[in-house]
C-alpha cells in the first residue's frame, strides 16, 4: 500500500493536498497552470520541500530524504535526457550509480529497450531522436530505477496532438503491465480522465475533488470541476417544484425539488435529449453544429438562453431548424461557494428511450446533497 500525503504551507503558491494513492494505480493530478500540481509532484520527488505535512510511501516517511534516496523516479516535461550521453548511457547511468553488476545492467537495459520499442537506437544521442522517441527514453530511464512511485510531469505536452494519444495509450499499457504506482500531472482534462484510475482535480493550490474518472465526469461536486472537466452547460438559474428555471423559462420535467433553490444549473451536453417529432419538450432553435467524431455537438438557443447538446453524428438536425429537448439530469451549484447543492436525474416525460443516448446511467436522486 502506498500512502502519499502532502500538506504544504499556505504562504507560497503551492499545493494543499491530502490523499491516499492505492498501490499499483495511476492517479492524475489535473488542474490549470499554476494550480500547484507540478509543485506537488516535485515535493514527492524531493525537489521542493513542503512547509508542513508528510509524504509517506508504504508507511515510510520520505519527507526529509534527499532526492537520491527516495524510491521515486520522475519523467520530466522536457524529458531531461542528458545530451552528452547516448541512449545507452542515459539508461545505464542510474544502474551504475547503484553499483549493479554490468551483466545485470546489460540485460535489464536491453529488456527495457525492447519493451519501449527502442532497440537499435542505443547509440543515438538525444538530439538525434524524435520527440516521441525521447519521451520513451525518458520513460525507460525512470522505469529502470524500479521506483515504488513513478512521477510523470506533463510527459506528453511536448508531443503533437496525434502522437500524444498514441504515447498516452502506451504509457498506460506499460503502467498496467508493471503495476507501478504512478502520479501523472497534466492540464489536459481529456488526457487525465482517459488514462487514470483516479483523478485529483486541483485549483489554486488546493485539492478540489479526488475520484475515479467516471465520478469526476458525472458527479463533479464543485463548480470548478464541472467547468474544467469535459463540457458542461452552466447557466444561472433555479430548481423549483415545476422544473428547472433558465432565463425565466421553466423547463418541463417537474418534481425536481420541493423548495425552490437558486444557483448555477449544470448539465452535460449528453444529458440534453432531443425529442422525437411530436413529443413534448422545450422548444429551441439549432444554431450551430460541431462534428466531434462519433458524436456531434449542437448549440440550442431559445428564451432559456443558449446551451449545447450532444447527439450521435448520424442523427444531427440541420442548423437553423427547430428542435425540442428535455434534460435527463441536472445539478445545481451554489453561486457563492461553488459547491454542489442538488444533483437530480429527471424522468423524461417525453417518453424518450433512456437507453438510447450515449450518456450516463441516470442515478435517481442518490447524490442529492442539499435542499
Amino acid at each position, binding site marked *: 500500500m502506498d500512502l502519499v500525503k502532502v500538506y504544504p504551507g499556505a504562504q507560497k503558491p503551492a499545493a494543499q493536498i491530502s490523499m491516499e494513492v492505492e498501490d499499483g494505480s495511476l492517479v492524475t493530478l489535473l488542474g490549470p497552470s499554476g494550480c500547484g500540481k507540478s509543485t506537488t509532484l516535485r515535493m514527492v*520527488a524531493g525537489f521542493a520541500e513542503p512547509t508542513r505535512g508528510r509524504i509517506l510511501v508504504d508507511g515510510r516517511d520520505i519527507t526529509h530524504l*534527499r532526492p*537520491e534516496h527516495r524510491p521515486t523516479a*520522475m519523467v520530466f516535461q*522536457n524529458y*531531461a*535526457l542528458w545530451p552528452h550521453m547516448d541512449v545507452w548511457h542515459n539508461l545505464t*547511468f*542510474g544502474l551504475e550509480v547503484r553499483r549493479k553488476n554490468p551483466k545485470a545492467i546489460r540485460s535489464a537495459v536491453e529488456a527495457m529497450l525492447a519493451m519501449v520499442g527502442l532497440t537499435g537506437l542505443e547509440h543515438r544521442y538525444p538530439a538525434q531522436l524524435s520527440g516521441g522517441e525521447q519521451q520513451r527514453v525518458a520513460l525507460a530511464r525512470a522505469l529502470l530505477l524500479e521506483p515504488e512511485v513513478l512521477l510523470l510531469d506533463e510527459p506528453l505536452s511536448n508531443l503533437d496532438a496525434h502522437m500524444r494519444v498514441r504515447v498516452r495509450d502506451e504509457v498506460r499499457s506499460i503502467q498496467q503491465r508493471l503495476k507501478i504506482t504512478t502520479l501523472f500531472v497534466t492540464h489536459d482534462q481529456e488526457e487525465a480522465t482517459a488514462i487514470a484510475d483516479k483523478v485529483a482535480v486541483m485549483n489554486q493550490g488546493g485539492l478540489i475533488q479526488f475520484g475515479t474518472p467516471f465520478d469526476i465526469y458525472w458527479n463533479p461536486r464543485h463548480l470548478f470541476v464541472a467547468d474544467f472537466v469535459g463540457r458542461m452547460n452552466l447557466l444561472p438559474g433555479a430548481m423549483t417544484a415545476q422544473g428547472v428555471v433558465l432565463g425565466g423559462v421553466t423547463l418541463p420535467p417537474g418534481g425536481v425539488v420541493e423548495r425552490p433553490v437558486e444557483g448555477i444549473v449544470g448539465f452535460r451536453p449528453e444529458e440534453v435529449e432531443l425529442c422525437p417529432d411530436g413529443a413534448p419538450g422545450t422548444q429551441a432553435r439549432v444554431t450551430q453544429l460541431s462534428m466531434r467524431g462519433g458524436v456531434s455537438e449542437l448549440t440550442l438557443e431559445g428564451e432559456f438562453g443558449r446551451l449545447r447538446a450532444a447527439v450521435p453524428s448520424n442523427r444531427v438536425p440541420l442548423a437553423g431548424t427547430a428542435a425540442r429537448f428535455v434534460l435527463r439530469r441536472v445539478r445545481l451549484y451554489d453561486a457563492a461557494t461553488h459547491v454542489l447543492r442538488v444533483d437530480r436525474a429527471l424522468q423524461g416525460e417525453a417518453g424518450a428511450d433512456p437507453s438510447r443516448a450515449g450518456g450516463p446511467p441516470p442515478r435517481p436522486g442518490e447524490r442529492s446533497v442539499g435542499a
Partner: protein
Amino acid sequence: MTGQAAVRRAPGSRLLGVVMLGIGAFLLLPLLNLVLWAFAGRWFYPSLLPQAWSLQWFRYVFSQGHLTHAIVLSLTFAPIVTLVACFVCLPAAYAFGRFDFFARRSLMIGILATNAFPRFGLYIGLATILYGLNLVDTALGVVIVQLLGTLVPMTWIAAAAFGGVPRELEQAARDAGAGPMRTFARITLPVAAPGVLVAVILAFLAAFDEAQGTFLVGMPRYQTMPIMMYSIVAGYPEPAAAVFSMVLATPSFILLLLVRRYIIGGSIAAGFSLL
C-alpha cells in the same frame, strides 16, 4: 499592379551592398596591409604590392632581445592569470548560474560595468592600492591587475554555461541516485564544458592583450607584448611593427578558430538571460 512590382526585394539593396563592401574593406584592408608589410622585402611608393617578398623582418624581430623577452613575458603571464581566474571565478560562476542569493544581480551588473567603464580609471585606483601594498613593479601586481579584465568572461560566460544546463538534467541525475558531487562531475560540468571553454579562452585573450593596467603596475620591468607595441611604433622600422603585430595576434587567431563553433552555437548569448 502586378508585373514588375517585386514583392520580396530588400529596399535599397544595392546601396546596402556598397555599405557592406565598405565595412568589409574597412576590416580587411588594414589586416592585408599588415601582412604585406610583414612579408615585404622591398616596397616602394607608389606600388600597390611589394617588389620583393622575404622573411627578413621576422628574423629581425626574433633577434631583438627586447622583443623576444616581451613575447616570453606575455606567454608566461597570460596562462598564469587564466589559471588563477579559473580557481577564483569558476566557483563564483557556478553560484551565479545556479543559485539565487543576496546581491547576485548587483554583483553581476557590477562586473559587467567594469567592462563598459573606461578601465583606465579603475586601473589607477587599483594601482594606488598596489602601490600601498608595495606590489607595483612585481609579478604578483601584474597578475592582480590582469585578473581584472578576465572577470567578465570568466564570470558572465561561465555563469551562462552553468546556468544554461537545465536544472532538470541535474534533478534527473539526483533522481537516478547520484549525489551532488557525482551529479556535478558527470552531468553539469560535461554539459557546460563548451561554454566554460569559451570563457577560459576569452579570459586568456583578455590577459594576453591587457596593456593599460600592466603599463601602470608592471613598468619598467614587466613590458609585455601589448606594452612593447607603443615603443615599437616609435623606435623600430614599420615592417618590424607589422611582424610584431602579427605575432601578437597569433594566439588570438588560433584560439578564436578553435572555439568558433561554440561562439556561433550561442554559448555567450545565454549570459544575458541570467539577469
